[in-house]
């Protein structure tokens, strides 16, 4: 059997039969920790500090998820990462009509500050860093997190973690948006501004290529659209009057780690170089922390197969290794059963052990950027950079990412790439072990996590009780004030915090914004 993808990378970059000095002419390669950080943002890299092992997790009620978090922390996980369910992601409470059948399914259900307090019960928010994957309702969920910290008596200056808060990739790829792009960008900027002033150790945004890739983009498109999104957020924050070096050091990124091993490593290296040069040359940042691209990575969910699911452990191992060789700051490894369901405790433990084996047994973290100087990897890095910069230039010419989204440009590029990729699987040109090659007839079923259908009922009961116990007068007043702020130009964060402290719900607060901003429906691109 001949090798698949031997002629081009997954992104379509032609691969030469052999690489030599002629493929890396003009290459400059400063040491790790030196501008433009192609070789990593730290001189000593993982010798100084290993990446954070951060498994994305959440399901059912806050009570159930809290138990999973306490388990993961007891197993040596070093940070938390919250997955919210779809009603929460879309700004609806557990009792909303569209929440039927969705509560607690894809993540944990959070409707109020009370749920957030339960979620982090027994977890000291001044000591554990928490990442939260939430976008359109991000200011509301972050306010609940900060208020939960207050209740634990933790000073906000000690709280650290990451809010995804990346709305642009929602319009581009994942499609969990509520409001139109411009008011949404204002909310993102409100969070960046408030965070810079009040919660200085928190990352107010995680500019994400992960979902762009999962939607079917190539690695080049993932790289280009993500960095161009980053440029858009910087533009908006500058427009707000913030100084670039006041907020840029806390911008963080999130990339996919897919199956084409060397292309992925090249992607991480190129990302750091492009971002450093953009921050210094395009935005005039002078603080070197503003130049450094810090990133989280997750192995590719879309590469997991339903067939022969144990093979997914191997896929994930290779992808995780690529992210580590690419110099990631934190990592999530997918579980073997995630083509079926949210992971079982057994499966997620293997996924965490995979990272621990790379960290402690493989010897890989000993030397920073060990592939530097490889003709092949350096040539790929240069090619990724060139191709990504071409896309960035084209989007600049369209007037920025919002006009590009409005004309469906990134959406169409991704849809085309995903359709082409599917074709290569159909024709067998791209082999997927267990799916179109080395297929087995009768496979044994694996043990799966089942989400209790009772989550919705329990969450609704809590909401009914909450609404009868809180001061509804106080809630109404705080929501009125929030709506006035939304209609005006003030930063909305202090008003959201007041509403949250009065136990206004996610749905109530998002409804206030819906009234002010309206909602968004995309024109579908096929």
């Amino acid at each position, binding site marked *: 059997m001949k090798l698949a993808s031997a002629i081009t990378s997954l992104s379509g970059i032609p691969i030469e039969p052999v690489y030599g000095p002629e493929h890396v002419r003009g290459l400059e390669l400063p040491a790790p920790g030196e501008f433009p950080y192609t070789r990593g943002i730290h001189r000593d890299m993982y010798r100084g500090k290993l990446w954070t092992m951060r498994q994305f997790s959440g399901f059912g009620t806050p009570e159930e998820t809290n138990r999973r978090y306490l388990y993961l922390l007891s197993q040596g996980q070093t940070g938390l990462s919250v997955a919210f369910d*779809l*009603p929460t*992601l*879309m700004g*609806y409470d557990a009792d909303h009509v*569209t*929440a*039927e*059948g*969705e509560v607690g*399914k*894809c993540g944990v259900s959070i409707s109020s500050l009370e749920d957030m307090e339960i979620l982090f019960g027994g977890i000291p928010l001044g000591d554990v860093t928490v990442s939260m994957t939430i976008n359109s309702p991000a200011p509301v969920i972050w306010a609940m997190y900060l208020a939960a910290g207050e209740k634990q008596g933790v000073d906000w200056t000690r709280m650290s973690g990451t809010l995804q808060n990346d709305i642009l990739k*929602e319009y581009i790829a*994942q*499609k*969990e*948006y509520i409001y139109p792009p411009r008011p949404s960008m204002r909310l993102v900027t409100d969070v960046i501004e408030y965070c810079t002033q009040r919660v200085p150790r928190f990352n107010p945004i995680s500019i994400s290529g992960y979902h762009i890739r*999962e*939607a*079917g983009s190539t690695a080049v498109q993932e790289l280009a659209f993500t960095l161009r999104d980053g440029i858009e957020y910087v533009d908006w924050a500058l427009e707000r009057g913030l100084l670039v070096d006041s907020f840029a050091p806390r911008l963080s990124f999130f990339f996919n780690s897919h199956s084409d091993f060397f292309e992925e490593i090249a992607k991480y290296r190129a990302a750091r170089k492009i971002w450093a040069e953009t921050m210094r040359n395009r935005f005039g940042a002078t603080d070197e922390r503003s130049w450094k691209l810090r990133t989280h990575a997750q192995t590719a969910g*879309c590469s997991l*197969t*339903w*067939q022969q699911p144990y093979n997914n452990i191997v896929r994930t191992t290779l992808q995780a290794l690529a992210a580590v060789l690419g110099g990631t700051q934190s990592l999530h490894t997918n579980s073997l059963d995630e*083509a*079926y*369901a949210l992971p079982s405790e057994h499966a997620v433990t293997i996924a965490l052990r995979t990272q621990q084996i790379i960290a402690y047994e493989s010897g890989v973290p000993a030397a920073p950027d060990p592939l530097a100087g490889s003709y092949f990897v350096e040539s790929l890095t240069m090619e990724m950079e060139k191709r990504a910069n071409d896309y960035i230039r084209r989007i600049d010419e369209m007037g920025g990412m919002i006009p590009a989204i409005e004309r469906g440009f990134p959406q169409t590029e991704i*849809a085309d790439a*995903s*359709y082409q990729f*599917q074709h290569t*699987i*159909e024709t067998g040109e791209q082999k997927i072990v*267990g*799916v*179109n090659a080395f297929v087995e007839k009768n496979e044994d*079923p694996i043990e*799966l996590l089942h*989400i209790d*259908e009772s989550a919705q009922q329990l969450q609704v009961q809590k909401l009914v009780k909450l609404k009868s116990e809180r001061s509804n007068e106080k809630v109404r007043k705080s929501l009125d004030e929030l709506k006035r702020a939304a209609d005006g130009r003030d930063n909305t964060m202090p008003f959201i915090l007041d509403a949250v402290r009065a136990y206004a719900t996610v749905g109530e607060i998002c409804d206030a914004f819906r009234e002010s901003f309206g909602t968004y*429906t*995309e024109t*579908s*691109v*096929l």
Partner: protein
Amino acid sequence: MDHRIRVLVAKPGLDGHDRGAKVIARALRDAGMEVIYTGLRQTPEMIVNASLQEDVQVIGLSILSGAHNAIVPRVMELLREKHMDDVLVVIGGIIPDEDAAKLKQLGVAAVFQPGASLDEIVGFIRSSVKQTA
């Protein structure tokens, strides 16, 4: 007269992951079918109404969020109410085997799980619509 098979591809529920729905819609179109793609966040009512108005022979639902047990029974019930039992309903997405069996008992013609090939899906729709025509 146009003899092309008419298919409505819909994405019900709150989920926005539309990669699969879009790939299927394009593949069915490339296979010569007339495809109407509804876009995201369609309620069962919207899906059945659109199917009635567009006079489709096939409804394809893409569900990845685990909400199929709430959504699909409602679609099947509405189809019965509107005497549209002859419309072929196929589902694609993350549907566990035991749920797939239950959905078939409700009248769903086929459930395509991850890894199903486009050829298989196109072939199933072609042969099933021919049988009922």
